[in-house]
C-alpha cells in the first residue's frame, strides 16, 4: 500500500481489478439479464465520479442536507465505572478496583492500568447525527444522484434495519424518483417505526415472506424486481456487497466517514488512533471508516460481527467465525452456508447485522492481515446499548452497540493512553421497541 502524503482523494484511490475482484473476492455472479445493466451502471459510475459537477453536488448535499461533517465526540463516562479511563488517584484510593467493577470488564483494567497511567480515550464518530440517523444516507444520496444522472426514473432497494430504506426513500423524495423498498416481514415487525417513516416519505414498502424474512430475502426480491424492470429501474444496494461495482461504489460513498474522522482525530488529539472499531453487517460503515486509515499501518482496524445467541448454525451472523468462501448476491466472499452450499439462516438482535455474507473487500483485507474481525453477542450488544445510553446520554443503534460493547470489552487489554475511534453508525430510536422486548421492561 502506498503511503499517504496528502488528503486522499474521494474517488478512485483503490479500485478492484477490471473484473471487480479484491484479491480472490468480489466479481460478478449474476444472471445474464443483469450483465448488461451492470456494465451500464459501472460505466455510469466511473463517468460520474470523474465529473466535478457530480462530486460538487454530492458534497453540497452532504454538507447542507445531511449535516456533514458529523462530530467526533470524546466519551466522558463510558469507561468510568468499570474501566480505567478518567479515573483520578483520589478515586482510586477511595474505591479499590474490586469494589466498583461492573460486568467483569473492570478488574482486568484496574490490574493492567495503574492510577498514574494516562487514560484510554474513546472517540465516537457520530454518524447517528446525520439526517435520517445513520451512515446509510451517504451512500443513498450518492447512488440516487447517479440514478438520476443515468436517466432512471425508478429506484428499488432492500432494507434490513430499515435505515437504508429510510435513507433511500429520503433521497428519492429529494430527487423526485419513484421508490420501492423490499423488506422482510420479520424486519418489518421489529423495525415498525422505519416502515412508517418510509411510507411517509412516499416510498412503497414491499413485504417479503421468504426464507428467514430478513435482509437476505429482501435482496433476493429486490434483484427479482430489478431483473424484471431493468430498463427504467435503478437498484440502490445499501451495503458494500453485491456484484461489482457495488462494493467499490458503496465504499467510495461511505469513505467520507473515514476522511472526516482522520482529520478530526488529528485535530483533537494531535495523533492517529491506535484502534478503529466498527460493526460489520454487509460492512459499509466499517469499510467507510477503515478507508481513512488503511494506509496508516499502525492503526488497528477491527470489525465487529453479530455473535447472536451463540456461534452455532442459524444462531448468529459472524461470517468470519462460522462461514466459508462462497457466492451470494453476486459476489464471492465469506458466507454462512451448510455442507450443500445452502445459505444458512442467521440471527442477530440487530436487523442490520443479520445477514449471511460480508462485503468482499472485508474478506480480502482480512486475508491480507490488515483488518481483524471479532463478534459480540446479543446480550453484550444490549449491555453496550444501555451503557452508552446511561453514561453518555446517547441511544445507539443496536448495530453500533456491537462496536461500543467490543470497545468496552477490549479497553482493559489496551496499553495505557490508547486512543480508540468507534464508528457510531446509527442512532437507536428505531430499536427502542426491540430493546424493551429484550429487556422485558414492557
Amino acid at each position, binding site marked *: 500500500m502506498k503511503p499517504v502524503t496528502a488528503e486522499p482523494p474521494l474517488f478512485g484511490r483503490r479500485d478492484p481489478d477490471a*473484473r471487480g475482484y479484491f484479491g480472490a473476492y468480489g*466479481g*460478478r*455472479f*449474476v*444472471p*445474464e*439479464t*443483469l*450483465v*448488461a*445493466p451492470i456494465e451500464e451502471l459501472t460505466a455510469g459510475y466511473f463517468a460520474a465520479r470523474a465529473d466535478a459537477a457530480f462530486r460538487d453536488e454530492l458534497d453540497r448535499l452532504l454538507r447542507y442536507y445531511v449535516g456533514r461533517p458529523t462530530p467526533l465526540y470524546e466519551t466522558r463516562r463510558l469507561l468510568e465505572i468499570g474501566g480505567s479511563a478518567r479515573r483520578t488517584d483520589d478515586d482510586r484510593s477511595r474505591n479499590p478496583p474490586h469494589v466498583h467493577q461492573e460486568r467483569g470488564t473492570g478488574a482486568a483494567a484496574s490490574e493492567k492500568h495503574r492510577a498514574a497511567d494516562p487514560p484510554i480515550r474513546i472517540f465516537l464518530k457520530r454518524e447517528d447525527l446525520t439526517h435520517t440517523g445513520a451512515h446509510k444516507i451517504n451512500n443513498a444520496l450518492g447512488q440516487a444522484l447517479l440514478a438520476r444522472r443515468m436517466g432512471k426514473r425508478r429506484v428499488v432497494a432492500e432494507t434490513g434495519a430499515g435505515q437504508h430504506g429510510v435513507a433511500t426513500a429520503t433521497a428519492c423524495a429529494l430527487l423526485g424518483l419513484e421508490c420501492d423498498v423490499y423488506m422482510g416481514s420479520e424486519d418489518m415487525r421489529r423495525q415498525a417505526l422505519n416502515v412508517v417513516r418510509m411510507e411517509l416519505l412516499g416510498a412503497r414498502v414491499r413485504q417479503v415472506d*421468504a*426464507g428467514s424474512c430478513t435482509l*437476505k430475502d429482501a*435482496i*433476493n426480491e429486490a*434483484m*427479482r424486481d430489478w*431483473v*424484471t*424492470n*431493468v*430498463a427504467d429501474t435503478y437498484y440502490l444496494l445499501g451495503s458494500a456487497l453485491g456484484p461489482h461495482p457495488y462494493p467499490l461504489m458503496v465504499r467510495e460513498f461511505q469513505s467520507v466517514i473515514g476522511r472526516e474522522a482522520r482529520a478530526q482525530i488529528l485535530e483533537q488529539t494531535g495523533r492517529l488512533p491506535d484502534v478503529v472499531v466498527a460493526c460489520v453487517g454487509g460492512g459499509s460503515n466499517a469499510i467507510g471508516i477503515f478507508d481513512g486509515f488503511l494506509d496508516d499501518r499502525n492503526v488497528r482496524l477491527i470489525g465487529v460481527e453479530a455473535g447472536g445467541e451463540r456461534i452455532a448454525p442459524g444462531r448468529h451472523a459472524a461470517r468470519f467465525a462460522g462461514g*466459508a*468462501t*462462497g*457466492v*451470494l*448476491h*453476486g459476489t464471492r466472499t465469506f*458466507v454462512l*452456508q451448510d*455442507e*450443500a*452450499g*445452502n*445459505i444458512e439462516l442467521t440471527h442477530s438482535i440487530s436487523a442490520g447485522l443479520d445477514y449471511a455474507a460480508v462485503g468482499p473487500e472485508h474478506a480480502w483485507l482480512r486475508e491480507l492481515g490488515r483488518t481483524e474481525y471479532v463478534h459480540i453477542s446479543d446480550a453484550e450488544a444490549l449491555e453496550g446499548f444501555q451503557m452508552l445510553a446511561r453514561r453518555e446520554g446517547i441511544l445507539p443503534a443496536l448495530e453500533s452497540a456491537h462496536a461500543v460493547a467490543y470497545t468496552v470489552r477490549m479497553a482493559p487489554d489496551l496499553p495505557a493512553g490508547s486512543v480508540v475511534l468507534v464508528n457510531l453508525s446509527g442512532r437507536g430510536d428505531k430499536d427502542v421497541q426491540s430493546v424493551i422486548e429484550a429487556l422485558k421492561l414492557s
Partner: protein
Amino acid sequence: MSRLEQTFARLRETNLSRRSGGATKADGSGLVTYITAGDPDLARTEGILRALERGGADVLEVGVPWSDPLADGPVIQRATERALAAGTTLAGVLDLVERLRADLRAPIVLFSYANPILRMGAEQFADRARAAGVDGVLVLDLPIEEAAEFRGLLAAREIDTILLLSPTTTDDRLRRVAALGSGFLYAISRLGVTGAREALAEGAEEMVRRVRAVSSLPIALGFGISTPEHVREVGRWADAAVVGSALVSVIADAGASPDLNTRVEEYVRWLKS
C-alpha cells in the same frame, strides 16, 4: 456426437420433414422440460423423469434446489423450498442421475446456481457429473466472465456448458457468448424471473433471430411458455421450447397423489400435441 447433439440433429430432421408434409402437430418442435429435483422428494423425482421421457420430452433439465433462487419466480421458489425441506442436495441429485442414466434416452442437463457447485468444488463436481452421465450443465449466475475455468473443467469431461442469452445481451456480447457455448444455447424470451405466462413475449422471435444470426448451435427458448400453442409457435423459429414453471405447477398440484406420474406424462403429451 454427444447426446445433446444427437437429440437436436434428430429434431431438426423431424422438423424439416414435418414442414414439408404440412403437418400441424408439434412433433418436430423440441421440448425441454424443467423440474426441480427433490420436489416432492428425490424418490418421486425418479418416477417424474421417467414419465417426462414417456410423454415425449426431448431434453430433461434437472434443477438443483438452492436456498436463494433469485432468478426464479414464486412457482419454482416454492418447489425449491419443498425440495430442500425433503433434504435434497446437489450430491443427491447427482446420485439420482447416475441411477437413471442408463434407463433414459433423453439428455440430462443440470440447472443450478453457482454456490452448491463451488461448495462441492468445481473439479469434484465435474468428476461426479461425468461419472453420473450428465450431458450438460447450466449455471444461472455464472456469466461467461466468471465461467472460463468451469467451462474448461466440463469440456475436458465432454460435458456441455449451456449458456444463457437474454434480451438485454448486447449484439457484441451475443457473439462472444455464442462462441463459448456448446450443446445448445438457452435464449431467455423476456426480462424477469421464471414463470408461466398467458402469451409468448413479444420480442421472443426477434430474440431467436438475433441468436441465429451469430450461431449455428441449436437454440432453446424459455421463460413464460406453458401451452401446446406456445410450443408449436416457438418450434417455428427455435429448435426447442423450455417449459418449467407450468410443469412444476402440475407436479405441485399432484403432490402426493398416486397418479402423479400419469399426470406428468399426460401433461407433456398435451404440450407436444
